[in-house]
């Protein structure tokens, strides 16, 4: 690996990561769902990118390695896309999950009691 990344560079990256962590913890305190989603998952993606690019040196690694990892990620999105229409829904064309819907309703009601 080439030597342009000195310890100072790594520490700078680390500092940014910690700052992002703080933001992602504070984000949900506003209790606005959009803000939570962005601060939690948007920032997770940014953090992931920074770790992968800088600490794992994927920035300077041969593109082959990046392709390998990205291909596997893409396959996971395929899996999600093919599976979610059944698992992520309570009803669809000519099918229905009454048991699950009852459970969701009961769970939500119980949650409402708590607050």
């Amino acid at each position, binding site marked *: 690996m080439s030597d342009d990344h000195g310890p100072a560079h790594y520490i700078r990256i680390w500092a940014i990561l910690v700052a992002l962590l703080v933001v992602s913890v504070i984000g949900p305190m506003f209790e606005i769902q959009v803000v939570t989603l962005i601060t939690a998952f948007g920032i997770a993606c940014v953090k992931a990118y920074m770790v992968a690019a800088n600490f794992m040196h994927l920035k300077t690694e041969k593109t082959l390695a990046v392709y390998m990892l990205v291909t596997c990620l893409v396959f996971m999105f395929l899996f999600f896309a093919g599976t979610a229409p059944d698992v992520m829904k309570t009803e669809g*064309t*000519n*099918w*229905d*999950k*009454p048991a*699950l819907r009852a459970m969701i309703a009961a769970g939500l009601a119980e949650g409402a009691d708590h607050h």
Partner: protein
Amino acid sequence: MIEQYLPALSTYAGDIDGVITLIAVLTGFWYVLCNIVFFGFIFRYRAKSGASEYITGEEKELKRWVTIPHLLVLVCDLFIIYGAVRVWVDVKQTLPEQPYATVRVVGQQWAWSFVHPGADGKLDTADDIKTVDDLHIVKDKPYIYELVARDVLHNFSVPVFRLKQDAIPGRVIKGWFTATDTGVYDIQCAEICGIGHGVMGARIHITTEEQHAAWIAENTPANLATAPAAPPERKPLAATALAAR
């Protein structure tokens, strides 16, 4: 093709058989063609007939012989996709708008039970008729079935209808059929469901409307002092296995 082995007794059975025939013709053509070329080459180019020729397969005039059939296969595929999707939409995605009745089909280890609407034609009323391993329906009438499972996966399969659908615990799955002739035929469980899977069969009784009315009158719970009969005698194994549990 399939009618030679089993009668086609639902309105869509012919369509499904049609798709099967379509695929048989198209793939059969390619299969025969491939084999003629394949065995032709083996015979024509055996070692005795001389040395081999240097061909890379990148020559345009030769590559054509692979590329063109390959595109033709794609065209055949499109026909098959069209045929299959059309039948699928009809069988699995559309429900009759004005069904004659809805029956509930319940799979459990290792028997089918059926809930028929009584004289009022509605499910979940007092006059529902529950049976074990016998489904009674009227010919030429569109039925909707509601498929549920009590314990594990089962598959509601009526071969003469060309119908199969898994029953999944936690889900209610709907589908339909319209029988085209009377008679008594098999219902099978076509998804392994434990040691009694091999005895999990039932019978479908397709009758005329009059016969069905008579059957309803005879079996309406008011007339029936006891619960539905236990699974019939032909299932000694299921009984012992259940006892073991």
